[in-house]
């Protein structure tokens, strides 16, 4: 039901966004929060859907949130986090900069100074796309590793329009990609890191492959990707957890935490799991403190229902050349 409701959100936003983008920013953000609140008032059972989800989250985490308050705050955020950075197009540079409060920038600088690249350990919490926006605006050498984000600003679309060895194009991955295609993307990602750049990778990607690990997040046991762990271990890049929360007034709190290293041996069987759990643990702390920024985490369906990645595709066999050489 949540997935269907998100489709309705998309349609509604397609109608209102062209108008909102021409209006004063604060008004547009307020309007979006009102739309979110109206969902609860107008749509049958929506209030109970939100309250059940928040109450369930509180129970699983052992938190004593005010369920009613958190539900309403979450609803107010729902349209706002979906519009990502779309309302920042065509606004003055200085004005955009003033919308961000940044903490831990010294951690970011220290991680970059290590010279081995930075795995920006991101997530789907709060206004996660906005950390990308801020990093580009401030001239940081950033690439995004993951599914290509949709519904983003023209500014971000332009930043992503880079080709070549260190370009963005090869770093967008699809869940339907075959082994060779995925290998190419991961190899590109390793090149980006070895060039000392920042690679944004989400730590909360549910995934099914031979290297995925089972972990508990927000009280749910799911299978998660270990790609960020592997890339950090292979390249020696610093891992920098980062979070971006949206305030009620449409401003953003961007927080960089101290970076850490993943040892080379973390790639060995079974060891990546601890690092995945560490990353998820840091994210879970944020959800505990700011449940209204949890977006759709409380609405995750069980692992039996969510989109699973098909097995890595294998090409049909055709012998390349005859060879008598073999190595045991």
């Amino acid at each position: 039901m949540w997935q269907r409701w998100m489709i309705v959100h998309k349609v509604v936003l397609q109608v209102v966004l062209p108008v909102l983008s021409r209006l004063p920013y604060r008004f547009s953000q307020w309007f979006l929060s009102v739309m979110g609140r109206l969902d609860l008032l107008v749509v049958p059972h929506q209030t109970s859907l939100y309250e059940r989800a928040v109450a369930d989250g509180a129970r699983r985490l052992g938190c004593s949130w005010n369920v009613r308050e958190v539900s309403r705050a979450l609803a107010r955020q729902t349209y706002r986090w979906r519009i990502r950075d779309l309302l920042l197009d065509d606004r003055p540079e200085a004005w955009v900069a003033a919308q961000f409060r940044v903490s831990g920038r010294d951690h970011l600088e220290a991680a970059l100074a290590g010279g081995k690249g930075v795995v920006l350990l991101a997530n789907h919490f709060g206004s996660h796309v906005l950390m990308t926006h801020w990093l580009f605006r401030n001239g940081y050498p950033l690439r995004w590793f993951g599914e290509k984000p949709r519904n983003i600003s023209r500014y971000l679309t332009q930043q992503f329009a880079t080709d070549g060895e260190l370009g963005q194009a090869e770093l967008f991955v699809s869940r339907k990609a075959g082994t060779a295609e995925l290998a190419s993307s991961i190899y590109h990602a390793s090149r980006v890191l070895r060039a000392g750049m920042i690679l944004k990778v989400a730590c909360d990607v549910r995934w099914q492959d031979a290297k995925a690990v089972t972990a508990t997040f927000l009280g749910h046991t799911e299978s998660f990707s270990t790609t960020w762990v592997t890339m950090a271990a292979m390249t020696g890049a610093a891992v920098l957890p980062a979070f971006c929360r949206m305030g009620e007034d449409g401003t953003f709190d961007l927080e960089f935490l101290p970076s850490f290293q993943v040892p080379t041996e973390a790639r060995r069987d079974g060891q990546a799991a601890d690092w995945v759990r560490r990353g998820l643990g840091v994210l879970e702390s944020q959800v505990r403190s700011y449940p209204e920024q949890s977006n759709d985490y409380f609405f995750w369906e069980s692992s039996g229902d969510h989109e699973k990645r098909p097995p890595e595709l294998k090409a049909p066999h055709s012998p390349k050349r005859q060879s008598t050489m073999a190595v045991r």
Partner: protein
Amino acid sequence: MGEAKLLEEIANAIRAEVERTKNVIITADSRLVEDLDLDSIDIVAVTIRLEDRFHVTIDVQKVKELRYVSDLMDQMTNLLGKSAA
């Protein structure tokens, strides 16, 4: 470097990165995925190990084309030939 020696180096790189291939016969015709059961990360790890071993850099566009052990051999042969020239 002779073909046999290069195959040995590549096989060693595969075995170093992918423990389950330790007792698998590796030939130039071995398919990386279907025969050696390498996944995308394994392929990248082997590629990087070979780059470090031979001090070469593989063309990023070529990684997508790696299907057989012989593809890795061809890449290394080309790159080693260029670096010797």
